[in-house]
């Protein structure tokens, strides 16, 4: 029984089918990545999973329950948390306020305080800048904040949409290090990335998407070696 099970998911924008009947599953504790070119429909899938975008067809079940049509603010309370593309931090709120908003739905204030400590251990930069408005952070720091804020929601399934987007290589490596660490602490992760190599190296399983459909699926290691993947997404000549 997977934590997340998606069957025949379709997402439409007006007459356009952005996601054309996708099946995928993520088991408890897995780090699964979804790679594909720009506009393949990866973000649309994540939006449909977390209730930001209605699905046109198909079923999504999370922790054994159907969640089609459940608004995102309720899903967060059950541990399904999205870090959106472009980070979505509240620029006019302080870093501390952003982190507090991550824990908005929680009532266990003692544990929230402990999680905040842990967060500051994970991201010392955020602790240094806690009183600063989040809009003044650098891109990498903002991504750290977005991750930290999501962790404050106490996620069971974390959906990450392009966490490496627009970041310098050094920062990308740092972000992936954090993602691995979060996964090693037992959080299930579905990672959407354009940086296919980094994503495949971090994940245990992967799906490859092309214009709205899943074209390949399997172990991340196998896909990393697959000539079709190497050619299309890793920028290598086919052997």
């Amino acid at each position: 029984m997977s934590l997340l099970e998606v069957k025949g998911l379709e997402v439409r924008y007006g007459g356009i089918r952005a996601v054309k009947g996708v099946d995928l599953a993520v088991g408890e504790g897995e780090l699964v990545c979804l790679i594909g070119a720009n506009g393949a429909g990866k973000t649309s899938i994540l939006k449909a999973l977390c209730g930001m975008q209605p699905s046109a067809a198909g079923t999504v079940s999370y922790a054994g329950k159907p969640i089609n049509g459940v608004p995102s603010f309720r899903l967060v309370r059950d541990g399904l948390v999205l870090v959106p593309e472009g980070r979505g931090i509240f620029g006019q709120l302080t870093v501390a306020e952003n982190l507090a908003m991550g824990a908005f739905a929680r009532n266990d204030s003692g544990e929230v305080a402990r999680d905040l400590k842990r967060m500051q251990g994970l991201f010392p930069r955020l602790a240094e800048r806690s009183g600063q408005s989040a809009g003044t952070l650098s891109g990498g720091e903002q991504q750290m904040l977005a991750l930290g804020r999501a962790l404050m929601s106490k996620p069971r399934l974390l959906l990450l949409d392009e966490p490496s987007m627009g970041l310098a290589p050094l920062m990308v490596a740092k972000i992936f290090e954090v993602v691995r660490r979060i996964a090693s602490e037992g959080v299930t992760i579905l990672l959407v990335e354009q940086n296919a190599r980094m994503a495949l190296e971090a994940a245990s399983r992967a799906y490859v998407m092309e214009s709205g459909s899943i074209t390949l699926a399997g172990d991340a290691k196998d896909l990393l070696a697959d000539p079709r993947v190497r050619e299309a997404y890793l920028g290598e000549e086919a052997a």
Partner: protein
Amino acid sequence: MDIFLQQLINGLTLGSVYAVVALGYTMVYGIIQLINFAHGELVMIGAMVAFTLIGVLVPAGMNPLVIVLLATACAIPVCMLIGYAMERLAYRPLRRAPRLAPLITAIGVSIILQHLALLVWSRNNLAFPQIIKTVSYHIGGATITNVQIAIMVMSVVMMAGLALLVYRTRLGTAMRATAQNAQVAGLMGIDINRMIAVTFVLGAALAAVAGVMVGSYYGIAHYQMGALLGMKAFAAAVLGGIGNLPGAMLGGLTLGVVEALGAGYIGDLTGNVFGSNYQDVFAFLVLITVLVFRPSGLLGERVGDRA
């Protein structure tokens, strides 16, 4: 100099009322980018409810101050309920509609509320009972009354309370987060609909108190009293920078002072061609000036071309 000081006092009194009402406009705009043209009507209903209650309570022979406080305490929940209802019934169904639809609806809601008030309270000017004995104090050739002092103190207390709520509590932080990015706020587990409702209800509560203050100050209540007052408060909100809380406070006070000084000096300046009955012109002169030269207002950020 006497006129100046006197008009300054009058202006600050009126300005604090404008500020309190302007906060309602600016909070709603901040969270859903809607100019709630029916907000002025909430002020009117606050005054009307208080008017009725004072009429009922005075024969009971209670302490006048207690009566006014009781009347205010009843006007607040009535206005909160109406504020909630207008959001829930009129604006929420239009959340995803083009921006003009809720704007026109707001004008409709304003007309509906005015005419409901007309049915309940008649079309007459009602003498708002000024049951608190006015005491005047003289300072430097000008007079200030206890009612004026009460209005200013009440306004400051309410504004401070609102600022504390918005900037220092979890609820307030969630409201600001929703105003900045509602979708992401949803991803934090914040119920956006609830935050928007809270915003309307808070603004309505402020409007109710403003209604009692205006009624007590002028001694008159009328079913259309909210229209002009609402427009002026809206002008104040734009002056301060719509969507900006400190801006609404500053804008309200500035507008009140400009209006009072304008009314005080316009006769002298124009050789008595225009009298102080032109007072209402100043609010809109200020509005036009701001829109032409600094559309984002005194403290506002660039708002671009939003309707």
